[in-house]
């Protein structure tokens, strides 16, 4: 039995009928065609599917679309504003914080939240904040530098 949901994604309002078991990540990817959010493990362990849900970075592979009814969602596609990259996106580009790019959208969302909460984090705090996101390519060093770049830029 499908349920109607209404939510705002990247500033655009959407109303859809979805199966109650449809995952938020599948709603974003398959229904709204926002494929920047990736699925890496289906079990909340890799963080590739991280999106902002009402201001909280969540793993959208373990949230049902119906749970996002009435919510405001920001995906990676909503991070650049008017063609201007978000400071974290800029940091990832400047510091070579990505290689294959698959974990990157989730990393950027998580890093942005980390800086929202702690605008001047230590290296240790950055590492701790990124623990829920796996990257297999970069070895994290350049990701840490990317977050440091964004922190400096935002000051």
């Amino acid at each position, binding site marked *: 039995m499908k349920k109607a949901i209404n939510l705002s994604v990247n500033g655009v309002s959407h109303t859809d009928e979805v199966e109650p078991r449809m995952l938020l990540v599948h709603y974003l*990817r398959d229904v709204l065609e926002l494929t920047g959010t990736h699925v890496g*493990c289906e079990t909340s362990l890799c963080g590739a599917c991280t999106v902002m849900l009402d201001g909280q970075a969540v793993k959208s592979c373990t949230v049902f679309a119906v749970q996002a009814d009435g919510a405001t969602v920001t995906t990676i596609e909503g991070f650049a504003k008017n063609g201007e990259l978000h400071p974290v996106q800029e940091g990832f580009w400047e510091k070579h914080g990505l290689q294959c790019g698959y974990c990157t959208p989730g990393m950027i969302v998580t890093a942005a939240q980390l800086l929202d909460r702690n605008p001047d984090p230590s290296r240790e705090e950055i590492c701790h904040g990124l623990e829920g996101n796996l990257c297999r390519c970069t070895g994290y060093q350049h990701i840490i530098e990317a977050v440091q770049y964004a922190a400096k830029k935002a000051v």
Partner: protein
Amino acid sequence: MTDNYVGKRVKRTEDPRLIRGLAHYVDDIALPGTLHVAFVRSYYAHAKINSIDTEAARSAPGVVAVYTGQDVSGKIGPVPCAGALPDLKVPDHRVLATNKVYFVGHPVAAVVAKDRYAARDAVDLIMVDYEELPVVTDVEEAAAGGPVIHDAFSDNIAYRLTSGEGDIDAAFAAADRTVKQRVLHRRLAPIAMEPRGVLARYFPGEEELTLWSSTQIPHLMRTQVALMIGIPENKLRVITPEVGGGFGSKLNVYAEEALLGWISMQLGKPVKWIETRRENIQATIHGRGQVGDIEIAFKNDGTLTGLRYSVFADLGAYHQLLTPAIPTLTGLMLSGAYKIPAIQMNITACFTNKMATDAYRGAGRPEATYIVERGLDLVAAELGVDPAEVRRKNFPQPDEFPFHTATGLDYDSGDYETALNKAQEIAGYQQLREEQKKGREEGRLIGIGVSTYVEICALGPSQAMPAGGWESATVRIEPTGKVTILTGASPHGQGQETSFAQIAADELGVNINDVTVIHGDTGIVQYGIGTFGSRATAVGGTAVFIAIQKLKEKAHKIATHMLEADASRVSFEGGKYSFEKAAAAAAAGTSDPVVPVGEAPAGALPEPQTDGKSSLTLQDIALAAHVAKNLPPDTEPGLSATYFFEPKNFTFPFGTHIAVVEVDRETGDIKWLRYVAVDDCGKVINPMLVDGQVHGGIVQSIGQAMYEEVVYDEQGQLLTGTLMDYAVPRASHIPNFELDRTETPSPVNPLGVKGVGEAGTIGATPAIVGAIVDALAPFGVQHLDMPIKPENVWQIINRG
């Protein structure tokens, strides 16, 4: 030629699409009417299939078709194995199990449904009646005659091989001393962040099939899948869109790739399968999986005289593309960075009821480096000398290159001692040793590990490769002057869209933004081999470089004609062919002679007549080449060149890694103090990308050394089937890397590059393990097997 880009930290051209979520991986491609595939996989490691009841699944909502092994029998050829070895046993590897299943995760049936939820639901409705059979998971038990897995063979031994040069028995007989150690290389899961995935679309009218696949080898896959499913190769197009990491796991041709293509042809619809992470750990190739004994013979002064490695290689149930070849790569690199006159490797490669092992980042070479370096640490301990000094004593010197090893290789170039010195200097090695000594007196457990590795890259000469070791490139200048590069290398995160553009932009004197690198589409790109074995830049980049030289020869000819000048008086600089500059330089005597013998001096020549121009941009020439109204006689229109580069040798990057750790006596926790790596990968095109490769490789080594292990129980059940159980390193697990380089160009290619993709996974594990072992030396520890966990460490500290 300019030097605006090569050697500089050029930001990647790939990144804007990736950081904005606008790139397309396989699952991001949506075609109307796409059907979704889910697999029934065996939950037994070894069982006979008595029957498969698919009826409930076939009538489930949304289900379009169900295929079992019987349904595809005789219609799809076996999964290919390219490893050719004498007397190799090759099991008949079908895309779906027919009579028996051989490992947990073995695909048994494929369900095709209208959406991925319906497909997944229907999987649970398929009833397979299994009859359990005895299981063998231990490689030595498999070798010793445990339950035989494949009915076609009398035992589980896929092959035995002895390799090496020199009189090994004499070396051991004459040795002052020897050391011996059993060493385990556990199975690892590559864990590319993007799991595998295939989208297949058959066009019935055109009789053409397109496969979008997350692979490292689109062209090789096209050839193999065409043979498997019986479609003409020129009717099959393989596209690798964005590929979310590979690490060797996508250097393969898998059952699912052929099956999806075949299903699309049966149904006339696009079909998609995206691997789940659980499937990825069960049924994508694993790496490593060796149990071996290393013996080293040496003199009292530390001179190495012989090395023997006898190894059991755990191949798993079937061969994938390169499964049997991987242990042989270990054999190639057993000389490490040292002069060892006699080397012998004895391989016993066995089938077990597990997923196949194959190439995982480093592919057989990390095993070699690990055992040689661990062995050198044991030699140092036996002699009571510093591990760095035993290494230094046995290096070939720079003037001894090309250096022939007793494994049959000729190392191209090297200066191992300079890299060691530099790493020791950065680390403050002597001071570290003093701090360690002082720390021990205070009860602190500090350990220092040193690894001086050499690796084999730029795979490779075709003679040494199963299916071609060359790489191809086409360089084309479009009528508007934009530069298009088609490379047969198919990168998946390495950044060749940038690094190849750097090479081209400098060689052509154009802006890097005017260069586009296209890869991973067999419909557009000439045949290529792919990205693996740290080969893309050294082999593929060289193909780009030489193709450009060919193109410039033609452009020069056209320019000379258009400028109505003598060829020797037209020079190319900053993206322009000019007459004046060459003439002026010649008049001033500042360039090579431009006046052919017997002709008048340059200054006496008439000015060129080119509509008043004395120079032409590449764009002018490209336009002229395409409109083709004023070309030299016998000149083909168009401005492009293709080159297939065949390397004459491998390349051999090297370096020194120094790891420093401290072990917590109370918890067994291992804390990072320092990590210094000095790598030499020859000439560097983009230092930022090289650093990234090194970081990533070292962290995969940290995973191997301290966290990762694919575990099967005695029944062959996979106990590490999710990322909760299979521990990939996270950001808080890494040290702050201190990287540096030395630069010894390779003579094998004109760019002087060697390759760096696997250096970290090859050089780092012995340094890390060496450091932990060194920290525990006060407890009499000389060796520990990976992964070394706090639990192991705590037990050593508390055992008595």
